[in-house]
């Protein structure tokens, strides 16, 4: 069936209404306003800026700790302190080492863990607020629309096709079928967040990878209301050690928000040896430490979520400009991999993109030559200063914590150069060891159940993520060869998708094989509960065969990260 798509033309099309995309839209709208007020030609219109957001509303898919460095926001919205939902300024930052039973606070908090001047925020609330400013500026934000496909013209990016709506689970049109729109734009901005599905295709198509492939982590978060007096608003702690073993890279966070609300989470690098490691279970285990138990006892789980994040840093930053398109925010690796802070860098990258696009609109030239100005703007900004200092940081930890600390000590005194520069990295999934090498039995490990009060199983947690998808739609998790799942993967890796997914999407179901000649033998079948998907992209990243392709489901589906 050939689909006739409706076409719409825009000046600028931004895919993703997160900190990066919205900062780009708002800064560009401000530049256009000044431009028009000065009487300059050609006249430009903020209405020709389109933003696509796959979530039900702006902010619905935003998940972060979050501690925000306000410096980019101060440039974007100078009087932000008057109206932004900042929750609470950081008052005390602690670094805490956990062993199984005890906790030790570092007497002096190491600089990367210091957060004076920053705010503890709900990224969902910040982004919702920013979205309202963007809409007030006349920009068109299309909620419940995802970018499904890039449109090319003479090998330049020329826009995006949004996802088809109203297809049933077999891909047949239902009554409400609406083919995706073909949105054409002079400049397309990919601000899809970590492991963007269009970004992934563009990076592969145009070979935009830097010397290192992107490295990723997964962050698993719960928001709790705790008993009064358990934590001061503005108290932030980062934990090292238990239950994260020293051959892995990861740690926890505990952030005190206003009104006895606390954000807790565990971040783990998706580059571990045991393919049956379960990040969700590790997070639950972490909560049983006396230090956390004391905090959470008598409290109540409010919300759950999970999201991957790009760790790779400067040397994993893809080439961020091609003819007709720019890549910003997490999609473009704008994250400080040492401090795990990316909100301000994402915003700044969006603003620098806006300045570049403004030049392109004025001159009518959106080729890589003009858009390449983005890269030089990045190089001259504090983005480069911050990221350059830690350019070898994350790679140092690819072989465990101890080696990592030695490397970082040298990097600290050499402005980031350290012992090896550039230090190379490999894709995280390559760290998976085959299971016959890990001395563990082939039997599936006992799954974490949870006590229902302090700890929870994955389904209960997913329930608290507010995730919803229309179940009568095509599965948005494309497994390119399900035969591998029931043959090689069973033997070699024990089906890690069952373990790394924090939303219980992947399941190896046992069923009776009724095919001719099979007798009544049992066989495995991959069952994908896609309606549980919280859009974290971990599967797309961590699958050892790289055969899982995450594509956008029908717009409006996904988690509801209210307050996260």
């Amino acid at each position: 069936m050939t689909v006739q798509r409706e076409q719409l033309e825009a000046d600028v099309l931004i895919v993703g209404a997160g900190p990066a995309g919205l900062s780009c839209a708002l800064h560009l709208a401000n530049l256009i306003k000044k431009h028009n007020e000065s009487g300059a030609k050609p006249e430009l219109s903020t209405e020709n800026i389109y933003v696509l957001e796959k979530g039900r509303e702006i902010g619905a898919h935003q998940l972060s700790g979050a501690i925000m460095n306000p410096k980019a926001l101060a440039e974007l919205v100078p009087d932000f302190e008057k109206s932004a939902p900042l929750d609470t300024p950081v008052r005390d930052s602690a670094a805490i080492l956990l062993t199984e039973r005890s906790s030790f606070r570092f007497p002096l908090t190491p600089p990367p863990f210091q957060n004076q001047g920053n705010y503890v925020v709900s990224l969902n609330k910040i982004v919702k607020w920013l979205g309202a400013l963007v809409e007030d500026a006349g920009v068109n934000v299309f909620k419940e629309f995802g970018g499904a496909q890039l449109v090319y013209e003479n090998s330049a990016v020329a826009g995006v096709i949004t996802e088809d709506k109203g297809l049933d689970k077999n891909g047949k049109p239902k009554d409400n079928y609406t083919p995706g729109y073909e949105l054409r734009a002079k400049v397309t901005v990919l601000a899809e967040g970590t492991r963007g599905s269009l970004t992934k295709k563009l990076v592969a198509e145009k070979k935009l990878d830097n010397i290192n492939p992107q490295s990723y982590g997964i962050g698993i978060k719960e928001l709790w209301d705790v008993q009064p007096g358990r934590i001061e608003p503005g108290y932030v702690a980062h934990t090292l050690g238990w239950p994260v073993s020293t051959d892995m890279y990861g740690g926890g966070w505990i952030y005190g928000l206003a009104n006895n609300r606390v954000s807790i989470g565990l971040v783990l690098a998706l580059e571990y040896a045991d393919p049956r490691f379960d990040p969700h279970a590790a997070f639950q285990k972490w909560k049983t430490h006396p230090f956390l138990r004391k905090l959470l006892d008598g409290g109540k789980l409010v919300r759950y979520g999970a999201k991957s994040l790009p760790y790779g840093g400067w040397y994993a930053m893809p080439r961020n400009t091609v003819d007709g398109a720019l890549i910003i925010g997490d999609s473009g690796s704008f994250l400080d991999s040492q401090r795990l802070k990316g909100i301000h860098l994402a915003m700044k990258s969006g603003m620098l993109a806006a300045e570049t696009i403004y030049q392109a609109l004025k001159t009518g030239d959106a080729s890589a030559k003009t858009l390449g100005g983005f890269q030089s703007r990045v190089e001259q900004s504090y983005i480069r200063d911050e990221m350059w200092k830690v350019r070898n940081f994350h790679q140092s930890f690819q072989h465990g914590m101890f080696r990592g600390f030695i490397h970082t000590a040298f990097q600290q005194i050499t402005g980031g150069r350290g012992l090896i520069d550039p230090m190379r990295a490999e894709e995280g999934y390559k760290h998976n060891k085959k299971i016959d090498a890990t001395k563990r039995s082939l039997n599936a490990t006992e799954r974490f159940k949870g006590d229902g009060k302090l700890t929870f199983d994955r389904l209960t947690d997913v329930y608290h993520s507010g995730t919803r998808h229309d179940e009568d739609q095509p599965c948005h998790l494309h497994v390119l060869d399900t035969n591998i799942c029931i043959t090689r993967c069973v033997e070699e890796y024990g089906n890690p998708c069952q373990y790394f997914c924090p939303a219980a999407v992947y399941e190896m179901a046992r069923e009776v094989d009724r095919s001719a000649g099979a007798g009544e033998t049992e066989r495995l079948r991959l069952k994908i509960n896609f309606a549980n998907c919280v859009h974290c992209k971990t599967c797309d990243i961590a699958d050892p065969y790289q055969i899982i392709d995450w594509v956008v489901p029908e717009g409006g589906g996904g988690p509801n990260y209210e307050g996260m």
Partner: protein
Amino acid sequence: MKILVITEQRQAKWNNTSFETLAAAQQIASALSGTVSAVVVGKSVDALANELAGKNIAEVLQIEHELLESYTPDGFCVALKQVIESAKPQLVLFPHTYQVRDFAPKLAAMLGKGMIGDCVGYRLEGGRLVFVRQMFQGKTAADVTFLGDGPWFASFQSGSFRADQVAASEGGAKPVKRVTVELKAEQIRTKPLELFKEAKSAVDLTQAPLIVAVGRGIKAPENIPQAEAVAKAMGAEIAASRPICDEGWLPMERQIGSSGQTVAPKLYLALGISGAIQHVVGMKGARTIVAINKDQNAPIFEIADYGVVGDIFEIMPALAEELQKAK
């Protein structure tokens, strides 16, 4: 500008959006000093044609043919193509109905013309007719206009104009012209069957006083009848948790839980349901919950009034048998 409005009727009953489109045509005609012809298609539609003749239009074109009694896309396209070729309108308007969605694009394509479907209004821009369509689920609207020569095809969404604003004829009934069309049975490639009304989803679980629900513990689709036997013996409706409906072992409208229905029956018998929170939110309002599950730690037992730790495959047949006896 000559405007043709293709009305829609079935078994001599109007589809009322026909008059909304007629009102739109009258407004466009008066703005562009044009004329409106109303077309009615079918068999034995004199009464409908005469009703149209009472409206403020130029004429009614009545297309009658044995083969147009029931709607077929081929029949309508072949007939209307001839009407359009002889009447030579500049603009052909349709109500945006399911039937129109089916044949109008095809008709336009047969004539090599474009169609603007599902419009919600029109505007005049310096004498040029511009149609307005919703985009992005109503978030924004697009202006669309025709290039090239007519006839132009467009359809209006239901509710875009008001049927009660159709102007009546001031000078008595307008002429009704019967137009004969050439139509042969072999030109029609589909055969319409009896009209039927789709049965509403057969069950409304929210109204069921007794529900027997099955979960993963049922293991395979061929075991469902065992649970159905229990349900039948009790006079209960059968329902299921999500994995069962996901697999297609029971239809989706029988799913209980956060992505299915929420029920509060007098009795809820849960067979092999572990009690994930997604299911529990859909049934915890039941007055009495009875759970049977192999796993004594299954969370369903936390909310069950009566619990049996046991094998449903032993219990189901015995239960069905005892219930039969008790009747």
